[in-house]
């Protein structure tokens, strides 16, 4: 009876099975407000593991895996299921649809992109004028959203309707050490959370929140955190890596002036990105410290995401009830919110290893000191 439960829990291993699941998740269509396709995959994966699992009123999947022994922290892990995309708003006949963007999408990326629409993945294309017909300075002009249409063809127009969501039709692909896909933001987080749930250490109660509507204002996380009432929260997300040569650096004024990219946000291959401050959250310093110390003691790479704009579900979570100590950790990802984003597989597996190590290290003492 006196035997203490072992705190050595094997970390998740990332292999073909995890990558196949990530690919399935990335290729699902789950634009904010219509997350059903990803939710079905999450439920299928989580149900056999959970002590309790339910879908709340707004569509979040909430699942609890209880630990053993006392005292235990209730730890919320959140990843958002939704992705940015499009919504059909007007049927103009012959398979042409007007559309709006959902979430943060730069319209200048859209002309000429293949898309698929709705739960049946009806293929379509965001049409644009071919270069043969472009005249004069038309090339230099931005094409406004009002001029763009999704073209599904005249036979498919019975199979889509106004209100349907659409996403980029990008297949998931391995590029050597990298992964290229749409919606890596935040299927990387969703797939990581599934693995962490599968390998939940028993020193904590793991409260998983697969949230909806993050991309339109952290809406799902708000009610999820209220319902789960955790002691602390860790958000798993993706964050831009702008680690490219700084082509647009100002011209040199003197020999001592040099071009250095000072706004990379994060860098691919430099490890999971720990948040200190973004627009929505000032991470709990105790949790930032724990992440850094754990990474160093486990010899796992990490980087501090450059403080700046943007936000994660932590922005909603930390303000719920009497306040919830929160931190975010992201997989650095290039070309976020475009048709094809790119992440490094080792950053993702290191994120999972780091969060797992942090979960194993969590005890009520972490919060016994003041923030």
């Amino acid at each position, binding site marked *: 009876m006196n035997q203490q439960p072992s705190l050595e829990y094997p970390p998740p291993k990332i292999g073909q099975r995890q990558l196949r699941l990530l690919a399935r998740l990335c290729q699902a269509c789950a634009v904010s407000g219509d997350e059903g396709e990803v939710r079905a995959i999450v439920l299928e994966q989580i149900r056999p593991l959970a002590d309790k699992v339910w879908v709340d009123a707004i569509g979040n999947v909430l699942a609890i895996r209880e630990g053993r022994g006392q005292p235990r922290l209730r730890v919320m892990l959140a990843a958002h299921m939704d992705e940015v995309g499009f919504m059909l708003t007007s049927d103009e006949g012959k398979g042409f649809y007007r559309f709006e963007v959902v979430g943060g999408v730069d319209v200048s990326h859209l002309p000429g992109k293949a898309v698929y629409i709705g739960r049946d993945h009806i293929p379509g294309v965001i049409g644009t004028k071919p270069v043969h017909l472009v005249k004069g300075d038309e090339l230099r002009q931005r094409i406004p959203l009002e001029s763009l249409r999704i073209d599904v063809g005249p036979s498919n127009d019975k199979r889509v309707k106004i209100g349907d969501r659409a996403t980029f039709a990008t297949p998931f692909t391995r590029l050597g050490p990298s992964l290229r896909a749409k919606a890596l933001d935040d299927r990387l987080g969703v797939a990581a959370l599934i693995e962490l749930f599968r390998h939940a250490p028993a020193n904590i109660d793991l409260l998983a929140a697969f949230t909806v509507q993050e991309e339109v204002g952290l809406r799902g996380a708000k009610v999820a955190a209220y319902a789960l009432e955790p002691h602390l929260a860790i958000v798993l997300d993706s964050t831009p890596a702008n680690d490219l040569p700084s082509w647009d650096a*100002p011209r040199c*004024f003197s020999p*001592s002036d*040099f071009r*250095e990219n*000072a*706004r990379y946000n994060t860098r691919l291959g430099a490890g999971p990105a720990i948040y*200190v*401050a973004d627009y929505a959250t*000032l*991470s709990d*310093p105790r949790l*930032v410290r724990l992440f850094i110390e754990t990474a160093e003691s486990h010899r796992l790479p990490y980087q*501090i995401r*450059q*403080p*700046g704009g943007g936000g994660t579900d932590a922005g909603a979570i*930390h*303000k*719920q*009830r*009497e*306040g*919830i*100590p929160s931190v975010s950790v992201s997989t650095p990802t290039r070309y976020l919110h475009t048709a094809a984003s790119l992440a490094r597989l080792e950053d993702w597996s290191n994120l999972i290893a780091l969060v797992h190590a942090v979960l194993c290290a969590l005890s009520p003492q972490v*919060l016994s000191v*003041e*923030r």
Partner: protein
Amino acid sequence: MKALINKLVETAGPSGYEAQIRQTIRALIEPWADELSVDNLGNLIARFGNPSPQGRNIMLAAHMDEIGIVATHIDARGFIRFIPVGGLRPQSLPGGRVRFLSGVVGVIGIEQKPPEGGAPKFADLFIDVGASRKEDCPIKVGDFAVMERDFIDLGERLVAKAMDDRIGVAILIETLRRLKEGRMAIPHQVYFVFSAQEEVGLRGATTAAFGINPELGLAIDVTSCGDTPKGPRMAVELGKGPAIKVRDQGMIADARLVSWMVATAERIGVDYQMEVLEHGGTDAHAIQLTRAGVPAGCLSIPCRYIHTPSEMVDLRDVRQAVELLLALLSTTVEL
């Protein structure tokens, strides 16, 4: 009160990293509070008094955080790039100094720009802590700093960084001291909240108000003045008494509380002015929208040059705010 204000403004407390200022405040109020606690976001909460049938559960909030900066990049030559934490304006910074929480002090430099360059942006600014290589720079990405600027005593007028809102903190501390040392009997149970993260979106007050679940809330914060050359069009002046807020961008003050405050000020004969603020908001906004809603208002201290390293207040406004607050807490309020 000058010594108290001096001590408060010279202690660092950027949003999210309020540990130092919280420790300073706690050491001051420990003898006077009935109960002290620190919540998950780092709000310091002092309870005074007990509930009575005529009394209310009152939350008073003055935020202890101040605007600051956080390091985003250290370049190869040891210069630090940064972004603001809270509503700083870049034009007020070049030539100024910052102090990191570790104590390291640096100066803010600005890139040379072509003559037609226009107003500076944060991306044009950097901090120099005297390092000549990245490896020698004692600052890491994610380190926080506040403005470094001495407190100046101009007689009745006081100038310092972080008057927003250490002047509110000073008023709450002085009010609590007078209640305790004057053995004043009040009908209310009062929660003095020294709130965190106000400057980044009233975050501390949001969770503190949820936890306290008050019947009435008042923020004590600074407000702008219209009495400087080509200043904002605003009928608040320095030295004309504390201002009773009618509205700002985030809140329409509860009319019953406005009347209570006006009637009490008239009764005890302190100066006051009515405040209608076009922009900005205070912790009262967060309190008002807590749970099922809380009647909320705000007692403001007129302040010039807000969110610069040299914020100016008038001590007469401060003293009268304390008197008004003591009188308010001594009377019942009809809701």
